[in-house]
């Protein structure tokens, strides 16, 4: 078994080799571009160009006048055809003689473009909604209680994301994404009131501080980074970035995809520790270079890294006549903290090759420790992914395979339980130290030894010409209909389902292997490239284990159903 130090050394060597490779790739085009012949000073060139432009303009006007004089129609006193342009050619006035701002854009004060705050800041975004109806039954009857609903047939506000894209300079860029996911409101009220509540009947001294928080959904920063280009197409990126593992995490914009639900591998039964979109705080190198008929692209980051986080509930009581201290931790993976409280301990990377237009193959990965520093255990996550896209005329195939190794979960869970009991007993006081301690684990992690899976999309784009005469095509430049087929399959090995810990030793650890697949067929309609309306049918099937991996109902856990079907209607947009 490898020691943690050996693994760290391997990671560092791999990181150094990748930096060497990327640096070489970045330097080669620059070396080629450096061989430029000496050019005359810019100011003289600009002046010469301005004079030439003015001469040509005069020549054009003289020719137009000459043609008018020689034309028989010109002898008659009829109104001349007025050209659309009157004075000077836009974009080539006194102060704007180069291509910098664009020929048709006019003087620097008049710009084409859709920036809101001048040219520097662009605001955009994307969003999606869906409606789902499925045949998941209610939970079994328990006594005379109403049967619990395990799934709802209804609308789902998936997300709305606002993006800002700022280019203060040609070599600088600042980008951000703020996501509202299933978000309806966030209310925070805080006040301080006297204990006596202002009533003579409540003779209490002191002040009570009250804070009420109510919220539904998630509001978060999905990306927020700044990039400094050291060379053409090569930049240093710093901030909240997306680990480029697999395909969907970086290409997660809803208007890109032709189905109204993300893949099992990246979201529903995520093979990665955080479902898409997974973000981390760090810094790295990004670049892209032409290579023959295609190009290569790469990303390499060092990040704080995903961590295992937990909250726990402690109860002390009697069970079967014996004193018992029960600790129930809810353990889950979370992206690394943004407050500087964790050391940088992970690297993530991607290398893609596009040999021809519309096709790409890429290798990517993530390596780093995830156990918190206060646990006496160094366990890391190692993920590797292979993804690609192939285009042949109107046919497209796109897919991804990800494998993640989380280490031995038995050791991790045991270390967490030991730490919890020790800290909890010390916290609660001397009386509780005499109690038996029992830890029951609520692992919303999920906690697995390995997870792996793949998905494959097959689609075909077409548009019957007769639809141009209908409301579906009228007024749209290039509408499309896209039938699509997707196959998802995931495996969870060693999923921890139950855990007991007593007197600093594991008394019970239940785990099992689960596997699920999903077949999706759908038809999407794109009136424009950034808006898609989709109807899809899904069939989810349990391939191994006692429950499905997805969905997981709050409070009810995973479903023991063998399979279920869904009809999903969705709309996504980007702007």
């Amino acid at each position, binding site marked *: 078994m490898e020691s943690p130090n050996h693994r760290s050394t391997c990671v560092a060597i791999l990181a150094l080799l990748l930096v*060497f490779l990327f640096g070489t790739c970045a330097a080669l085009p620059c070396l080629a571009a450096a061989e430029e012949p000496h050019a005359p000073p810019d100011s003289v060139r600009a002046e010469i160009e301005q004079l030439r432009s003015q001469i040509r303009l005069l020549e054009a006007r003289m020719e137009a006048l000459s043609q008018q004089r020689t034309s028989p129609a010109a002898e008659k006193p009829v109104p001349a055809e007025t050209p659309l342009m009157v004075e000077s050619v836009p974009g080539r006035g006194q102060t704007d003689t180069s291509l910098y701002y664009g020929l048709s854009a006019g003087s620097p004060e008049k710009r084409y473009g859709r920036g809101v705050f001048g040219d520097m800041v662009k605001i955009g975004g994307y969003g999606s909604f869906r409606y789902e109806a499925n045949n998941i039954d209610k939970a079994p009857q328990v006594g005379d209680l109403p049967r619990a609903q395990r799934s709802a047939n209804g609308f789902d506000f998936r997300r709305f994301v606002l993006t800002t894209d700022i280019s203060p300079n040609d070599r600088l860029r600042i980008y951000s994404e703020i996501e509202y996911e299933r978000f309806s409101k966030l209310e925070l009220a805080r006040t301080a009131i006297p204990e006596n509540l202002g009533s003579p009947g409540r003779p209490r001294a002191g002040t009570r501080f009250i804070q009420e928080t109510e919220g539904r959904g998630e509001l978060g920063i999905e990306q927020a980074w700044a990039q400094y280009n050291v060379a053409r197409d090569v930049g240093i990126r710093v901030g909240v970035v997306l680990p480029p593992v697999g395909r969907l995490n970086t290409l997660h914009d809803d208007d890109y995809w032709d189905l109204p639900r993300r893949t099992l591998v990246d979201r529903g039964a995520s093979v990665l520790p955080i479902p898409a979109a997974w973000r981390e705080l760090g810094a790295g190198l990004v670049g892209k270079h032409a290579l023959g008929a295609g190009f290569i692209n790469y990303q390499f980051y060092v990040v704080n890294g995903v961590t295992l986080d937990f909250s726990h509930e402690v109860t002390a009581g009697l069970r079967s006549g014996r004193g018992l201290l029960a600790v129930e931790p809810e353990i889950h993976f979370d992206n690394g903290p943004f407050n500087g409280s964790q050391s940088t301990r992970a690297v993530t990377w991607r290398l893609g090759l596009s040999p021809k237009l519309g096709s790409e193959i890429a290798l990517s990965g993530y390596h780093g420790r995830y156990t918190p520093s206060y646990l006496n255990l160094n366990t890391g996550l190692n993920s590797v992914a292979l993804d690609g896209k192939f285009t042949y005329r109107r046919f497209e195939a796109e897919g991804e395979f990800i494998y993640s190794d989380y280490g031995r979960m038995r050791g991790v869970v045991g270390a967490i339980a030991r730490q919890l009991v020790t800290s909890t007993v010390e916290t609660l006081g001397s009386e509780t130290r005499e109690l038996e301690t029992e830890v029951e684990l609520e692992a919303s992690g999920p906690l697995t030894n390995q997870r792996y899976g793949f998905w494959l999309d097959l689609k075909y784009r077409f548009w019957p010409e007769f639809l141009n005469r209908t409301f579906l095509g009228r007024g749209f430049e290039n509408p499309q209909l896209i039938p699509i087929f997707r196959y998802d399959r995931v495996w969870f090995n060693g999923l921890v389902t139950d855990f007991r810990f007593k007197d600093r030793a594991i008394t019970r650890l239940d785990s099992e292997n689960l596997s699920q697949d999903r077949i999706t067929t759908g038809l999407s309609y794109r009136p424009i490239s950034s808006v898609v309306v989709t109807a899809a049918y899904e069939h989810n099937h349990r391939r191994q284990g006692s429950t499905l991996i997805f969905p997981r109902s709050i409070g009810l856990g995973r479903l023991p159903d063998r399979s279920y079907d869904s009809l999903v209607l969705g709309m996504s947009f980007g702007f």
Partner: protein
Amino acid sequence: MITRQFALAASALVWLQACGNVYAGDKDFTPRIYIEINEAPRAVFPGATRFERKDVVVTKEMSQNIRARVGQAKPTIWETSYITFIAKKDTAVIGYAIICEEIGKHYPMTFIVGVTPAGQIEDVAILAYREPYGGEVRYKGFLRQFQKKSLKNPIMPYKDIVNVTGATLSVRALTRGVRKALAAVQTIYLDETAKAGGK
């Protein structure tokens, strides 16, 4: 661990500095302008021996003809004049080049389209690209798709032009613009040539 992290960071800085220094030696570096106007026609007609520049002011009749020929494409910029070049090899006209612009996501993209006397595209080249991303449209592998196309072809993404992921809006803008360029050359030059040939 600290030593390894330091070594990693130092290696990255050394290579980045190498990239930056080599790049700083390029005095003509302007990240968005790839070809100057006067060099542009040679990018699409490298075999020509001389070029004759002709700035054409668009009349109302010309504008109507161009709009009719563009068809379903919806250009975002309708130029009021065009910079054009007549490409000649010795005394024979081998083609016409026209500079056009279209808006990608936020900024205009400037490009030149070379058209043969038969009304087919000889080549396309990007003069200036102003968006922060999506610049794959300037690579030869993408532009090669336009060669031999004419107004009889759709020249649309996902029809006869392969899209580039991450540059969808730039691809769409360029296809519109190329179609507009073809329509303009047909109107300004090829219709006149056809009329002269018919007399």
